């Protein structure tokens, strides 16, 4: 099967229960700016990845493997892969 090009977005966020001091500081700054009702801010990372694979499923599997091996630290982070 010919390789096709895919665009994907990988979102990496801290696991629930892992303290996020940067998110907390941002939440506090939003409060200082007068934004009311912000209950929680959690900071994460987004990776936009262009890749070739034989199928959409193959692309997703490759990206999940990339997350496990490098893009996320699974001790503290969760990841989500969306292939367009």
């Amino acid at each position: 099967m010919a390789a096709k090009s895919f665009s994907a977005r990988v979102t990496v966020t801290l696991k629930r229960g892992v303290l996020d001091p940067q998110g907390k500081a941002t939440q506090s700054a939003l409060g200082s700016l007068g934004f009311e009702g912000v209950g929680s801010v959690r900071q994460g990372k987004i990776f936009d990845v262009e890749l070739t694979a034989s199928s959409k499923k193959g692309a997703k599997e490759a990206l999940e493997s990339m997350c496990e091996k490098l893009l996320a630290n699974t001790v503290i982070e969760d990841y989500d892969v969306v292939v367009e």
Partner: protein
Amino acid sequence: MKACVVLFPGSNRDRDMIAALTSVAGEPPHLAWHKDTALPDCDLIVLPGGFSHGDYLRSGAIAARAPVMNAVAEAAQRGVRVLGVCNGFQILTEAGLLPGALMRNAGLKFVCCEVLLSVANADNPFTAKYAQDEIIHCPVAHHDGNYFADTKTLKRLEDNGLVAFRYAQDTNPNGSVNDIAGIFNDEGNVLGMMPHPENLIEPAHDGTDGRRLFEAALNVVEMAA
């Protein structure tokens, strides 16, 4: 015993580490580069502090996937002693050679100060020259030193004496859980720590509390004066 210091692009405490090892061992350590696939024959591998690969992605994350780390992991498995200080500790956790992770300091600021450490387990090749629960001085300089591990891992560390050093007397500078400043692996031959013992080696450093760690790690017997 012979040491080997592993250099990564962005290591910046390597010279201090080389000076410390040279002072204690009486001969300079071997040097290895992050692209090396094999290490020189040695008894102690040291990953020094710094900002390997600019701390891109996560501190230590890129360095942990460098070719040399396969050789470090293989040596660790054979029982060779491995010490990671500061960024070296971050690299060891990212490489899976030590459990847990080092997150952004709880205060969000880079901390550069002296802390007090208590020796939490002196029954180990790295800490054998300290007394159990001895309090020592040590400098820290880091942005991501906030040690985190899940409750199950923490319990395993605590139950098995795998905590090497703790920040003592309210000097925890980064929010590390259980005041953890350094940990051993299960086998006890890998030590990661955020503080910099290599900076307290000579009397001119205003203290020599770090020296005994290297003497122990290198099995150096001090000559009676």
